[in-house]
């Protein structure tokens, strides 16, 4: 049996460790995400969704517990190894696009590949152009990131997250700042990538309608998984 794309076992996270105001945010999370799964994470504000996402994305380390990405145990890895693993295996989309305003849309999409290789080359430009085309922004490829609309910027951020063709995509309320139409467009793109490339997606949202369109909904309340339910059949992938 193939390894899970993401596996968290008994993951706990505390802030202000050893201080009087030490607070445990996550209380032993167990979660597995398989290739091709599109999983919504829901829960009230402050329930630990973003912390869970940051830990799953190797942006933060758990206080205890185990975390595997593609079957690789990450708890013993140093910062450099974690960074490289993150760059090659995980894509991020945040509520705010966080595009680099000094670069064009195309250059923003190229950035993960460029940073990983150290030098730019033609294949990166080609891949970035294809991704922009797929999110409907082919004609805007040379526009400075700051000149695009909010919806367009979020689509560029999505293309950037997929630049390294990662097996796992973590999306932290990517539609939260968008109008309904733009939110729907971005979500449809996520669904398309999930379907076409088998990218496993962990999608934090407050939007019940969008969550209902995912394969699975995980409810996080007070740092614990309260429920984990399948809402749609997951497509069979090879």
């Amino acid at each position: 049996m193939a390894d899970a794309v993401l596996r968290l076992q008994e993951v706990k996270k505390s802030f202000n460790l050893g201080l009087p105001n030490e607070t445990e945010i996550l209380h032993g999370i167990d979660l597995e995400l398989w290739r091709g799964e599109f999983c919504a994470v829901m829960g009230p504000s402050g329930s630990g969704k973003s912390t869970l996402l940051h830990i799953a994305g190797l942006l933060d380390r758990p206080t205890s517990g185990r975390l595997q990405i593609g079957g690789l145990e990450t708890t013993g890895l140093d910062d450099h190894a974690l960074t490289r693993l993150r760059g090659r295996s995980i894509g991020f989309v945040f509520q705010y696009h966080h595009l680099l305003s000094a670069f064009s849309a195309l250059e923003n999409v190229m950035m993960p590949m460029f940073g990983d290789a150290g030098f730019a080359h033609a294949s990166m430009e080609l891949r970035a152009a294809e991704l922009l085309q797929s999110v409907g922004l082919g004609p805007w490829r040379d526009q400075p990131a700051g000149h695009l609309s909010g919806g367009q910027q979020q689509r560029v951020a999505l293309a950037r997250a997929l630049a390294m063709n990662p097996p796992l995509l973590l999306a932290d309320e990517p539609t939260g700042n968008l109008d309904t139409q733009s939110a729907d467009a971005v979500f449809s793109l996520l669904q398309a990538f999930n379907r076409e490339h088998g990218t496993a997606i962990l999608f934090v949202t407050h939007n019940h309608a969008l969550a209902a369109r995912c394969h699975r909904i995980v409810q996080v309340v007070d740092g614990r998984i309260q429920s984990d339910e399948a809402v749609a059949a997951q497509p069979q992938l090879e």
Partner: protein
Amino acid sequence: MKRWRPFEWVVALRFLREGRMQTLFIVSGISIGVGVIVFMSALLAGLQANFIRRVLTAQPHIQLLPAKEVARPLGPPLGVRADAWVDAMAQAPLQRVRSIDQWQTIVAQIAALPEVLVVSPSAAGSALVVRGDASRAISAVGVEPARYFRIVAIPDKIVKGSSRLGASDILIGIDLATDLGVTIGDKIRLTSASGGANTLTVSGLFDLGNKGANQRTTFVALHTAQSLLGLEGGVSHIDVTVKDVYAAERIARAIRLETGVDADSWISTNAQFFTAVQAQTTANTTIRFFVGLSVAFGIASVLVVSVVQKSREIGILRAMGITRGQVLRIFLLQGGLLGLAGSVIGSLIGLLALVLWQRYARNADGTPLFPLVIDPLLFTIALVLATITGLLAAFAPALRAARLDPAVAIRG
């Protein structure tokens, strides 16, 4: 994106270009600082070179002299303390004109030193010059023109006649010529304290730029001075010039050790002047240090602000897989590039200021106050030092950027 440029270069350049106004202001600040340093350094180097040239124009870098004559009293009678006996009995002897022992060997020894340019033996002593009713006390310096004129360029100072020095020729200063009422071709009689006398023909008049020297100094051929001063075959001085004038004291010490002859460098004979030059250098170095320091703080402060402004972008770069090392290099490069750009512009500003100085700062007769040497090495040093300063100044902000926690940076 240019394919040949590394990732860190591209991002560093874009960040600088994005913060246009900040970059412009800090580059202007660095340029002014570097311009001031370049201008001051060239000005001071020119000024000091001019001072030293003026001091050394009429004297050798090192002069070897015969040992001073000392009285050697017999031992004290019984019951008398030795120091009391010496004080009472050993009267300081008069210093006669004496020859340096084995001077030909010493000249050959010194000439073989790699740091030495010219070695010239001379015989010098006091004499009385008489013409009709007029007489003056002078210093007669006997030299080998081929060597001595490479140390003191007398031919350049001849205002009338020539610098020819035959057996019966004498070169005198313009002020002595006026006092004696003589000109080229006139004969004057020299008498030394030892009783030697000779009648010589004035072959040239020189101007050393100092009235006292023009009244007192005369030059004759070496063997003429030797017979006049009673120093047959001997020399009273050996004059030396060296490649590095600032190394003169060290070389003098080495000569003293090697030959056992007293050797005075121009540094020890002009101690006060040299101290003044050193003080000027120290003051200038201090000013340059503080200007450099303010430039460094300027770069650091701009980059600290840039790190704060770009913390989210740094966070997202880290989330994309950009390593701490890459982030560190992005900010170090910005510091280095700011330093380099500022130093290039600053060097041009300094150069322009030097050209303007040379053009407009002039003596009443229109000649330059002093010649400035625009040394390419100065600009190279300015470029390298400013770039290194930029890199060092960027280190703290770069480290801060590299240590940013990506999760915290993204949250803002």
